């Protein structure tokens, strides 16, 4: 479904159709396209340049994406939640020549354009990774890679009203924006951050399609008024969907189509499971009808052979002789079903936020009161996984006090979800046969 630009997709949709609601204002497809054309006209020298879009309001971001896609060489999307320090650093490292912080003000010119870009060439969309401390990494996408899982049915799309629960600057939020706008559905963007207020807004707006992580769905199910949403489409992604959350959603919304999505960023491949059950059918492994070529390696890693393989040495080393990429996701087969166990690397997924155990260990090991530490994920029925630290204290003393000090130390240096949910004091740290610390729990 490749088109040359975001705007080219909108051309197909009736111009009177409502496209988005933001800050209480409804914007039609025509109004969105006109605002985008005006923006491009107002900033003619931006063509062919690398542009940074920093912390714009959601409708401003969408206007800018429609305006600039296909006309600039790259667009760097940075959420408002990033510090100014991190923002400047990333804007610089992505070689941006223009920076927008609002569409109400003129953009700032950072350097002279190279002017090598010709129109119609695909624009590179650059997103920042979330979930790790320090400076986020930049990941390059294109409209094509971002829309690979978008189902487009313009005539049926008018039946759907999507609600946005994610930051549109992040991968998951952008997916919802693109799914909704490119197919011609209405997108409702809540102004409130509070979940109860968002649910009330969605109910008032008759939102009937939502995409969220399993953890966020559990939270939504605990929120008053969620049952008033006339949901017809429920999408889960970003972490392992367990049977409990799938069943709870089925029970709460018997009319809805419930799908959970498996995506591997590196493989650029994704498949959707629609039968309401956790995991996916064993028949897909080496199967004819599989949505993508799937195998399970001897080490129980999920192996995928997508239509297009991404480049880069790191990826290259993970591809086997038959062209299958090691996703590093561990699976187990039970009966006719394949279930996900988590990352082989031990990366912990706390409600969709990835935590690198080594990073947490290094942070705790800095402390003179700590002799050593091992960090691993513990299964959580609420957030998928939680971070647990087993600590070998450097000397005897008050453990309650030491626990407090460790938590304080971590909180000052890491994101909330990286801070251990539990700290246990032990006399020896467990190691497995290979001498590697055992992280599966």
């Amino acid at each position, binding site marked *: 479904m490749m088109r040359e630009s975001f705007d080219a997709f909108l051309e197909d949709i009736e111009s009177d159709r409502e496209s988005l609601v933001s800050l209480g204002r409804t914007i039609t497809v025509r109004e969105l396209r006109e605002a985008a054309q005006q923006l491009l006209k107002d900033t003619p020298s931006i063509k062919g340049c690398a542009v940074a879009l920093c912390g714009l309001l959601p409708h401003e971001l969408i206007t800018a994406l429609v305006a600039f896609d296909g006309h600039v060489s790259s667009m760097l999307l940075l959420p408002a939640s990033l510090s100014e320090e991190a923002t400047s650093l990333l804007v610089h490292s992505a070689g941006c020549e223009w920076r927008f912080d609002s569409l109400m003000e003129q953009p700032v010119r950072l350097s002279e354009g190279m002017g090598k870009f010709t129109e119609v060439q695909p624009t590179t969309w650059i997103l920042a990774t979330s979930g790790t401390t320090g400076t986020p990494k930049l990941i390059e996408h294109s409209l094509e890679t971002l829309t690979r899982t978008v189902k487009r049915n313009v005539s049926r799309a008018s039946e759907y009203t999507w609600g946005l629960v994610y930051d549109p600057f992040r991968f998951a939020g952008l997916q919802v924006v693109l799914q909704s706008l490119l197919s011609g559905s209405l997108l409702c963007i809540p102004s409130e951050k509070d979940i109860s207020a968002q649910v009330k807004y969605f109910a008032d707006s008759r939102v009937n399609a939502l995409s969220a992580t399993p953890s966020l769905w559990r939270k939504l199910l605990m929120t008053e008024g969620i049952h008033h949403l006339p949901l017809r489409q429920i999408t889960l992604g970003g972490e392992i969907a367990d049977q409990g959350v799938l069943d*709870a959603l089925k029970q709460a919304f018997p009319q809805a189509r419930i799908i959970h999505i498996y995506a591997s960023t590196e493989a650029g491949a994704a498949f959707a499971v629609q039968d309401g059950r956790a995991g996916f059918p064993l028949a897909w492994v080496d199967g004819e009808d599989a949505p993508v070529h799937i195998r399970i390696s001897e080490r129980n890693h999920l192996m995928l052979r997508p239509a297009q393989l991404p480049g880069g040495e790191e990826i290259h080393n993970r591809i086997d002789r038959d062209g299958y990429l090691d996703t590093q996701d561990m699976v187990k087969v039970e009966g006719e079903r394949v279930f996900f166990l988590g990352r082989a690397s031990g990366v912990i997924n706390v409600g969709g936020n990835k935590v690198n155990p080594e990073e947490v260990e290094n942070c705790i090991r800095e402390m003179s009161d700590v002799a050593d530490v091992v960090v691993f994920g513990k*299964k959580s029925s*609420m957030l998928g996984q939680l971070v647990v630290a087993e600590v070998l204290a450097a000397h005897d003393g008050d453990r309650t006090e030491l626990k407090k000090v460790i938590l304080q130390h971590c909180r000052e240096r890491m994101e909330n979800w990286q*801070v251990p949910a*539990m700290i246990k004091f032990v006399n020896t740290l467990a190691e497995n046969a290979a001498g590697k610390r055992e992280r599966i729990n």
Partner: protein
Amino acid sequence: MLVDEGDNLNNEKQEEVSMKEKILETMQEIAADSDLTLMSHIDDDTVLLESGLDSLGFAILVASLEEKLGYDPFSMMDEPVYPRTLGEFVAVYERYAP
């Protein structure tokens, strides 16, 4: 085995009080560890996600209770229930108590 009805009721009542107390006590511990402030007055009608614990704090509560009580009702349910208020939450733990 014969059970004295009166005694049994009495036991259940006691269990109810102590379960709620255990849960409230654990909530206080987590709030203190996580630098969160709980609402000054929490009763059965308090909405859990408005009690001062965020969703991470709430997940830690369920995990801590599993350590203390030896079970996690949310991983045992055939009919999934996600409680909204403290009263509902306590009832879930009582229902699944071994």
